């Protein structure tokens, strides 16, 4: 696998990750990520098709709790850390872009 990663790739990844990187950050990050990727790419040397993946260290099955009421946060507690609150709700910026 080619561990090539360009400045444009990093810009696209940043937009997917919703981080507005500056030009300086893009210049700095692209070569660093290329070096890191080159180093981590060695996992493919030993990852044969017949090796099962491990997603979790301890084997687990799904756990359900009883469907019973239990105390939760009050609306005031839940909203206490919000950047903006309106009428006991989270106030958010518009969610649709210009073209919508």
């Amino acid at each position, binding site marked *: 696998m080619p561990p090539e990663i360009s400045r444009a*790739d990093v810009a696209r990844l940043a937009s997917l990750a919703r981080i507005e990187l500056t030009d300086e950050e893009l210049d700095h990050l692209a070569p660093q990520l290329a070096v890191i990727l080159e180093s981590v790419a*060695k*996992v493919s040397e030993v990852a044969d098709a017949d090796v099962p993946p*491990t997603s979790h*260290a*301890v084997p687990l099955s799904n756990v359900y709790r009883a469907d019973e009421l239990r105390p939760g946060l009050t609306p005031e507690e839940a909203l206490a850390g919000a950047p903006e609150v309106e009428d006991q709700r989270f106030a958010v*910026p518009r969610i649709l872009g210009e073209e919508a």
Partner: protein
Amino acid sequence: MNELITRSAAELAELLAAGEVSSVEVTQAHLDRIAAVDGAVHAFLQVDAEGALRTAADVDARRAAGETLAPLAGIPIAVKDVLATKGIPTTCGSKILEGWVPPYDATVVKRLKEAGLPILGKTNMDEFAMGSSTEHSAYGPTRNPWDLDRIPGGSGGGSAAAVAGYLAPLAIGTDTGGSIRQPSAVTGTIGVKPTYGGVSRYGLIALASSLDQAGPVTRTILDAALLHETIAGHDPCDSTSIDAPVPPVLEAVRNADLSGLRVGVVTELRGEGYQPGIEARFDDALKLLTSAGAEIVEVSCPHFVYGLATYYLILPSEASSNLAKFDAMRYGLRVLPDGISEPTAEQVMAATREAGFGPEVKRRIILGTYALSSGYWDAYYGSAQKVRTLIRRDFDAAYEKVDVLVSPTAPTTAFPIGAKVDDPLAMYLNDIATIPASLAGMPGLSLPSGLADEDGLPAGIQVLAPAMADDRLYRVAAALESMLLEQWGGPLLSQAPELEVAR
């Protein structure tokens, strides 16, 4: 220096039980110490003097009333800022959570409160636990009490420095790839990462959910066992919590007999890249283990050399997903982008994350986004998950031959602040010995092995055991600790320079 602050938690518990000292006095002594030296050390992001003294007074009153109390009741503790504490700001060392006051307690915190431990405050850490030096904290680095120009390890450098510098007798750390064990090694303290699932993750702000685990940071093995028993055990609020009895760690400390124990030395976790003084102290420790009746066997774990690469794919992938919740909508920072009159939620989110995340967090989120993106998933994340299986199999094969494994905890002693901060690969190498057990979910413990000859700084030895055999760590560590104490003529930390006290 008030003599109370150099006591172990177990000693303080005896003094409290005998009525020779009150929890208010013990707690105040530590608050005074924090006031005197934390300007220089910067172990704490928040100090809750009022809350800690309130708990202490409450415990004193309950003790006076004849109530039966938990073993550590009244002993103050410092908590890493990654754990939610109701009413005390919790930032994870990040600007994106600056001033956030959680409306609930993490289960670990809840258990500390139920056991009557006054919480002194929240300790500094690399932002979202991403780092090995605490230099990636958005609030400035913590300094190593052994040498204030050096790093205290990371990500839990604040907890380790607090315990090493006598700012707290006990602390809670969290370990994803070594963030409890490596800081302990470079500060001359003890750190334990329990079996994954042994301690609840509820209220632990997730870095990599399949790896994160909270555990004790202390100055003695007995204290670690006491704290381990206080915080461990099944929690229905964490779906990965193990529903089984806590391994008998306290009993293991009290019956630390090594005769007939088979100790494996991992070939791949020493040699090139390990500082000579660290290897020398490690070899000395092996001799002590042998003299106590243990049998030393060399074992090879060939896939451990892929551990670092595996970890730096799995961790960023999980982190990029976990940190997506910092979207500027329900809590934390909200920054409006410049020059846009009516920004969309996405634009606000991108501007907030740009302003609120530091360089290492951005680096890892982007790396994780790449590793999980279509076209690369198989080669990167998929392969890493397979290698994780191979590493677990190496452990399983090793534990057929031996009872525990040992290695140096970290390849070097504490390095100067600034030395590796912009060289990610050099920084990542700090965790080379601690990562394999993290990937396999197995428990690990670091204790001091002595001072490295070349720089006089603490070296650490790591003990590893199979999942749910945490008690074996304590058995080996307690025996080794008592032999080392005899050799040193007292605790290693008594050889650390005295911190200058602010007036």
